Structures are given as C-alpha cells and as structure tokens.
C-alpha cells in the first residue's frame, strides 16, 4: 500500500497565496475591516481612562461627553467592522474552498485504477471527507477567529505602547511564557489529540462491526465478545479524552501564569509611572484594562493554532490528490470517433507495482455479436484482464486496440460508450433509482429508463418500491439487496448502450433463483454487442462463442465448449467438477 502523496508546506503556502492574491481588493478589505474592529475594541478602556482622569481633575459633567461619544462611536463602528470582516472573509475564502473540493473529486476520478487500489479506497475517502471538512471548518470558523484575535493582540500592544512604551514592555513580559506554553502544548498535546481521534475511530469501527452483524452475533452467540470489545474501545476512548482534558487544563493553567505576570507588571509599571508623573492614573487604568482585554484573544489564538496547523496539513493532503492525478486531460484531444467493429488485445501483459506478473502474453479478439468467456481458478488474473481490455488499466506490454486506438486513451464518456465494464462490486449510489440509471445517460427520459428496466426484467421489483423510479436508494435511503443492485447495474449498462460489454462475475454472488434472473438480464445486455464475460458458473461459458481458460496469467486453453471438452484438458476438469451431478441434465 502506498498512500497518495501529500503536498509540501511550500505548495500549500503557494496555494494560499494564490487564493488571497487572486482578489487583492477583497483581501485588503478583509484586512481593513479586521483591523477596524480591533481598534474599535480599544475604545472602552480608553474611555474609562478619560473618565478616571476627569474625576481626578474634578472636571465636572463635561468630562463625560468625550468618553461617552467615543464609546458610542466605537460601538457603532466596531459593530459595522465586525460584520464586514466576517462577511468579507467568507466571500474571500469559501468559493476557493468549494472549488478545491471539486478539483479534488475531479482529480480522484482521474486517478488511474492502479494508483487508486494501491492507495486503498480509505485514503481517498478520508481525504475527500475528513480533510475537506477540516479545511472547510477552518476556513469558516477558526481562520476568522484567529485573524481577529491576532489583530486585536497586535493593535492592543500598539495601544499599550502609545500610552507609554514601558506599558508595552510590561505587557510583553507575558509573551515568553505564552510562547513556551504554546510550544509545550503543540509538542505534548498534539499526540494526545491524535490518539483521541484514533481511539474514537477505533470505537466507531468496533460499534459498526457489531451493529452491522447483529443477527449473526446472536446466532453465533458472540454477544459477550462484541460487548467486551465495545467496552474496551469505549473505555480506551474515555481514557484518552480525559488525558486530553488534563493536557488542556495544564495549558490554560500556564496561560493563567502569563496573564498574572503581565497584569502584575502593568500595575507595577503603572504605579511607578503615576508616582513619577509620567502618566495620569487614567492611563494606568486604560493600560490595565487593555491587558485584561487580551486574555480572551490570546486564548483564542493559542487554542486555534493547532486547528489551523491541522487544516494546513489537510490542505496538503487534498492538494496531494490533485498532484497524484496530474493535470486534467483536454477531453477534446482524445475525443475522436471510435470506428471499427472489433476489440483486439495483442500480447498483453501486466504486473502490479512490486508484484508478480498477473497477466502474461494474452491475445484475444472480440467482434460485435461475439461472446468470449474467460474461466479459471481464483487469482488466475481474469479480473485484471477484464480491466485491461476495458481500458481501465494500461498494459505493461502489448496493446489493446479498439477501432485503431487504445481505449485507455479515449475520452472518459466515450470510453464508457465504447466499452462498459461491470464488476461484481455493484455500488448503489445515494439518490433515486432513476439517478442511479442516469449516470449512464443524464439526458435519458423516464420512458427510456423504464424500457431498460423492462428489458432486463427489473421493472417488477422497481415498481414495487414505494416511489418506483423515484425511490431514494443507497446510503441514507432504502437498502437494495446485492441482487437488486446488480440488476440495476445491468439495466444501467443497457441504457449506456455500449459497443462492447465486459462482465466480471457480474452475477456470481447471487443465490439460486436470483442468479437465473441475473443471467437472463446479462444475456439481454450482451445481445448484439461484443462481450467478454468472466464467470465461475460454467453454463455462462458453455454458450460462449469462444472460451479462454486462464491459469497464472496465461491463456492455457481456448476454443468452443464442445471442442475443449473433447480435448480433455483443464476445462474438462473444471466442467466435470462444476457439473458434478449436472451432466445428466444435458
């Protein structure tokens, strides 16, 4: 397993820079609004300082006019700036984040099958869900909070300095403690948080494992084991959560020390400056309130640093997917018409990265209306051969040619129309039955969809669904049985109307009665097309025009059914084993 690449920090930074530099005026507006909101926040302490000075100098009621006006102005201005910074930041970052999500999905769809398998489906799914959510959440929440808190800190330090540079110096005494705390936190707490996420993931896996097999757990009396595993994993998650809480409280405890040191220093400096008549008591008040106002923003900045770093790492993983997929192909370049009526494989060989050769020197030719069956034991390379012929993989040696060109070089949509590959992995997409079918042809009418369902004999059960074609199926909807899912896949293949169809054990897993219906549906789909069928059940092979027997990646026998039986080789053995007791049927 080789996970997909991760973009380096430099590339992530470049991406972020592209986002902000693409709309410079908007970026500037966000910056201006954020600074304005923070500056307005300083109005309160300043006004209080003025009031205090007014009282000390016995200035009378007039002394209240300026501070109250300042407060009112800051309230109005601050409110406007707060609103603007939030709204503008969303306008700046959300569209690119959305665009990135689409780019990542597009890139994932462009990844070659080998790469996808090598990385494992989990890697890609976790990137496009977990990482995408993390980046989106950070862009909508943490980023704004961080920016406004950071700007507030900077503006406040400037404010302290403008009262007297010594106030700023006193306040900055807290910084080393905070920096040290942050370093400690990132070093100590991050592994704990990672462990907490891992423990929660393990807990989820245990729960899903048990909840997904309830009837079997009852029948096999495995309750105690399942409960034991749930208890252990849940307790482990609790332990790590408590450890995370301990780390967080230590973090805030250290920040409390920093708060006290800074506040105490400012009060001491205030005392010295007031006694030395360098500043008035009002300024000392303002300084103390300035600093007290920093507690919240400092906590925010330090607390979301981690989240932002994680989001940056997530962004790296997302960009990594686009890196792995390479630049988008210009579909027009590969869009040419598919001419010719035969699909030819010459000396096709294939090997998985770092693995042994799974397909070696295979030759075959499929004409329209011609049906070839591939049989052989598990692991003989049949499925890999199917993906090679379908153009989903590029052979290591040899060529697959359809009407003069390699199917792997066809535009995606055109490739499906030319060669459709249906595997036993029949995923039902979340959406309506019609949505599932229209993947093959988004413009198909309902009548057309029905026609395909009728042709493969799936209309009866689809009509029995509560909303018929419009019934929501798949994740979050009505669960379809394996058989129904496979049936739907065959109807979809018919809707696609490809010139060639490749069925990889498309009906292997079903039970007896179901298998007959699916076999019939498969026959309908293959009618009038060139077909390559890979099957365990040999009656599918028996009626084929040509049978290829595969063993260890090679074709060891080929010919028609009767011919191969007469030859008395491997096919004869397979057939005898399969038809044990069935011979009399024929």
């Amino acid at each position, binding site marked *: 397993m080789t996970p997909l690449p991760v973009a380096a920090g430099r590339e992530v930074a470049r991406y972020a820079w592209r986002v902000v530099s693409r709309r410079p005026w908007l970026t500037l507006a966000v910056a201006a609004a954020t600074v304005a*909101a923070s500056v307005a926040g300083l109005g*309160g302490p300043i*006004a*209080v300082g003025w*009031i205090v000075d*007014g009282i000390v100098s016995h200035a009378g009621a007039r002394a209240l006019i300026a*501070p*109250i006006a300042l407060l009112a102005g800051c*309230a*109005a201005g601050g409110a406007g700036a707060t609103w603007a910074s*939030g709204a503008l930041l969303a*306008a700046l970052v*959300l569209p690119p984040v959305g665009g990135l*999500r689409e780019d990542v*999905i597009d890139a*994932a*769809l462009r990844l070659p099958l080998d790469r996808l398998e090598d990385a494992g489906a989990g890697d890609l799914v976790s990137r496009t*869900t977990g990482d995408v959510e993390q980046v989106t959440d950070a862009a909508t929440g943490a980023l704004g909070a961080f920016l406004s808190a950071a700007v507030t800190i900077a503006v406040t330090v400037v404010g302290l300095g403008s009262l007297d540079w010594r106030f700023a110096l006193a306040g900055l005494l807290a910084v080393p403690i905070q920096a040290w705390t942050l370093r400690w936190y990132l070093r100590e707490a991050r592994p704990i948080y990672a462990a907490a996420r891992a423990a929660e993931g393990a807990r989820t*896996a245990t*729960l899903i*494992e048990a909840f997904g097999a309830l*009837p*079997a757990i*009852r029948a*096999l*009396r495995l309750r105690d084991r*399942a*409960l034991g595993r749930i208890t252990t994993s849940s307790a482990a998650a609790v332990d790590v*959560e408590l450890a995370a*809480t301990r780390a967080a*409280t230590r973090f*805030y*405890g250290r920040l*409390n020390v920093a708060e*006290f040191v800074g506040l105490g220093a400012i*009060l001491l400096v205030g*005392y010295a400056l007031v006694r030395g008549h360098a500043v008035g*008591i009002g300024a*000392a*008040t303002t300084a*103390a309130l300035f600093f007290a106002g920093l507690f919240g923003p400092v906590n925010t900045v330090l607390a979301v640093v981690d989240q932002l770093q994680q989001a940056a790492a997530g962004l790296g993983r997302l960009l990594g997917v686009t890196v792995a997929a390479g630049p988008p192909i210009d579909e027009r370049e590969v869009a040419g018409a598919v001419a010719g009526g035969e699909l030819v494989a010459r000396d096709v060989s294939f090997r998985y990265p770092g693995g042994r050769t799974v397909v070696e020197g295979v030759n075959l030719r499929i004409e329209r209306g011609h049906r070839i069956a591939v049989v052989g*034991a*598990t692991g003989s390379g049949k499925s890999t051969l199917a993906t090679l012929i379908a153009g989903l993989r590029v052979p290591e040696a040899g060529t697959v040619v359809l009407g003069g060109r390699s199917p792997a070089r066809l535009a995606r949509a055109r490739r*499906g129309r030319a060669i*459709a590959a*249906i595997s036993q992995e029949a*995923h039902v997409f979340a959406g309506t039955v019609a949505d599932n079918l229209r993947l093959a042809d988004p413009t198909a009418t309902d009548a057309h969809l029905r026609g395909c369902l009728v042709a493969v004999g799936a209309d009866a059960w689809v009509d029995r669904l509560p909303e018929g074609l419009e019934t929501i199926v798949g994740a979050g909807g009505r669960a379809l049985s394996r058989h129904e899912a496979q049936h739907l896949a065959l109807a979809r*293949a018919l809707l696609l109307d490809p010139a060639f169809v490749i069925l990889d054990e498309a009906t292997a897993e079903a*039970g*007896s009665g*179901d298998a007959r219906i699916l076999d019939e549906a498969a026959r309908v789909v293959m009618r009038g097309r060139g077909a390559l069928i890979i099957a*365990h059940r040999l*009656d599918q092979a028996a009626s084929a025009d040509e049978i290829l027997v595969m063993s260890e990646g090679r074709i060891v026998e080929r010919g028609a059914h009767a011919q191969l039986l007469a030859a008395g080789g491997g096919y004869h053995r*397979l057939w005898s*084993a*399969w038809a*044990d*007791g*069935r011979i*009399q049927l024929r």
Partner: protein
Amino acid sequence: MRPLLRTAVLARPRDLVTACVLYGSHQLGEALVPVIVGVTVGEAIGRGGPALLAGWLVLLAADFVLLSLSYRFGARASARAKQFAAHELRLRIGRRALDPTGGADRAPGDLLTRASADADRVGAFAGVIAQTVASAAAVLVAVVLLLSASVVLGLAVLAGAVLLLAAATLVARRNVALSHAEQQTAGEATVAAEDLLRGIRVVKGIGAEEAALARYRTRNRAGITASRRRAGAEASVGGVNALLAGCYFTVVAGVGGALALTGALPIGQLVSALGLCLFVVGPMRSVAAFAPALARARASAERIWALTSAAPAVIEAADAGAQRAFPAAPTVGVSELRVASGDAVSFSVGPGITGVVCADGALPGRLVELLARQLDLADGRVLLDGVDVRTLPLDVLRRIMLVGAHEQPIFAGTVRENAGLLTARGDRAIADALRAAHANELTPDDAATPLGDAGARLSGGQRQRLGLARLLAADAPVLVLENPTTAVDAVTESIIAGRLQRLRRDRTTMIITTSPALLAICDRVLYLGAEQVDGSHAQLLETDAYRRAVAR
C-alpha cells in the same frame, strides 16, 4: 425517558458535584479579577504606598491561584462526569442491541449515531449542568458586589445585561433554524463525495465520470452557497452582538461616570464596577444557554430510550430446561411452516448430511431465521431433539444448533481469531476446519495477519470460506448452512464438499443450497416445492422441478 437522562447525568455524582463547586469558585475568581484591578488602580496607584500595592498584588496572585486551580480540577471532574455518563449509555445501547432476544435491529449507521453522537450529547449535558450552576452563582456574586458598590449602578448593569442577552438571543434564534438547514446542505455535499468515491470503480467502468462529477458539483455548489449564507448570518449576528454590547457598556459607563463625578462612587469602585459589568455578560450567557442544551439532551435521551426500551423479537422461556442433555447428533424437526405458494411444509432432519432445496426463493432466509430463533412465527414450529425450541434457553438452543446464514461477518483481527471464535478446542480443530473450508491458503503466513475492518483485505470467496471454517470449527451437534459456497469456484466447491462430508460424519448437518456439488455428497436431499420430495440427489434428478431448481 426522564429517568434515563437523570441516571445518565448522575453516573458519577461526586464528579458532578465537584465540577459544580470548582467551576463556581473559578467563576468567583474571574469575577474578582476586575474588582481587584479596579481597587489596585484606585487605591494603591492613586493614593497608597508600596506596601498597599504589594498587598493588592499578593491578593491578585492568590485570586489567580484560586481561579486557575479551580478551573483545572473542575474541568477534569466535569470531563469525568461527561465521559463516564456517555460511556455508560454506550454500553447500555450495546447491551440492548446485542441482546440474544433481538428486537433492536436497525441500520448500523442509526445505531452508531445513537451510541456515539446521542450518548455524547447526553453526557455533555452533565458538563452543562456544572457550568450553569457555577454561572448562576457568579451572576449572583457579581450582582451583590455591584449593588454593594452602588444600588443605581447595580440595577443599571442588571437591567442592561438582561436586555442585552434577550436581544442577542432573539437575533441568534432567528438565525439558528436557517443555519441548521444550511449546515445540512453542506453536510450533504460531503456525503455525496464519499458515496461517489465508494462507487468509483462502477463509475470508471461505465465511463460515467463526467455525469458523477456534474452531480457532485450541483451538491457542492449548493453547499458553498449555504456556507456563505450561514457565514453572512453569523457575521450579522456578530455585528449585532457587538453593537448591543457597545451600547450596554456606553450606558453603564455613563451612569457610573456620573455617579463618580458626584463623588458617590470612588474611582477604584468605578473601575471595578465597569470591569464586573463586562464580566457578568459571560456567565449570564451560559445560564441562558441551559434551556436549549436541555432540549438537545432530552431529544438525544429520547432516541436512546426508544432503542433501549424496544420490545424483544423473541421471549426467552423463564423456566427453560437448561439442564437437558442432547445427543451428539440430534434430530431437527420443522412443522407447519407456510411457504410462498400458501402450502405448509413439515420435515425432519436426522444425523448425517441433509441437503434442503427450496423452490421458494425467500424460504432459505426464513428457515435460517426460524431455526436460529431470530423470530417466532405464528405458523412454523421447530423441534430440537423432540423439544419445542421455544422452551429452551436461547443460549442452549444456539449452542446445540449452530445456524450459519448466507452472510457471515468477518471481524477485525486475524484469520486465526476469526476461525476460532466459536471453539475452545484449540489450534488443531481450527486448522482442520480451515482445511475443510479450503481456507488453509489463508494460513499459515496470513494466520496472524490482521484482516482490516470487516475483513477488507479478503475477497468475497475468501471471506465466505473463512466464515464457513469458523462454523465448522465449532463442531456443533447440529449445523445449518445456507448457501455456503456461492462465491467459490467449481473446483474448490467440490473439494470443500468432500472435506465437509468427512468432518461432519457423526453430527447432524443441514445444508440449504442448490449447488449440485454440495447436494451430491448429501446422505439425503429434501426438495421443498409445490410437492415435497425426499431422496438422494441422483434420485431427485429424475424429478423435473428439482432439476430445474438445481440447474442454475
């Protein structure tokens, strides 16, 4: 439902009380910071000497120690209360879902949500309680302090803060429903992405990348629009809140300033009071958040309750004959079971291997459920060694008669762990069973290799063979298998059939199948169709209906 919420929250009463007390003293410490700073500025910096300043600074230090330690241990106690409450609920849900009597089967995702998000939410409510109690105490202390400084100012702060909160809540509530719906739209985009990628091989197989991407794009655009709208709503809430807080502070500063100018309020107390008036908004906000948090916790508790109080699918006999001894190969009888055609079937399966071929496609599934007593039917009755299974303890029934339905789950762990789950007979028995199911290719190298979640690293055929090996290793007196070799190739299937025959020689075995390879090794085959026929596979092949059933 109510008792569920109460018992859950009180899972760790001492931790909950500790959290309330310590959060309270933390809030008190926080409230005292502006008071001490104000007095220090007014008294020590304005008039006093170094000794007075030092005294106030020591007091400030003491206050920081108080608030910091209170928070540290309060938060830990609160975390314990929350985590253990959720943990207990999770186990309760697990116990109910896994109960041998059944009746709580729901979609795995549904159960997972209840056992994680809902349990966590109810647990988190313990923390909300501690926070609310402490905040209410803090508000009380702040108001008393303010009133003792100046009744007018105290009342102004109180009135202003209440108005501020009411207005802010009103503004927020208008946005909550909106943002909730929009959050869902954004979430749907994520779900769509995951769904699309799980089916990526299907998409690639038919070249539907463009169509799939277009579909995702629609969802994603809707999600982005929703996120932007939500961000806009949040920005306006932030703006309105800033405006309200600003007005509140302006009024309080004006009132306080006027009082101070007339000499009614010393400078120190003015600064303290203004600091307190800013502080008090936070705890008040926590108090106001209690009601919605309670509603959320209740909704979650209700969902958990609905599950844990679900009626069982089968009732276990109270006076079940647990002590009864069973022979090594008991007889199983099924009587009066209605099938699709409307007829009722009755049959009996004795020692040896019996093949059962069903004409009705739904019958195998029903038979398997009935034999494992997953449910009780009004019609069909099952007798084990002549005893109605409803009078047996479920554990005894399922130990004596092991029923392997078509789908056998593979659990995280190694091949050996999976194969040995039902037996204590040791490595030899496991190895024999693996061999019989032709799953020995998964050993010895792979025997200790973790299989990944739900056996993700195994192919369909490998999973099926491993599941079969597990059933065989149990060496149960009665073994019922439903279509055990559908994902296995023909050669392997006939090897398995032969080995299975040897391994189960002295036991009772019922194989529900249409596979000729398996039927050929059966001592006896029962055909359950419009007519019920009994005989050897070879004999039954003379019957047209049977031939059609087994010729796939």
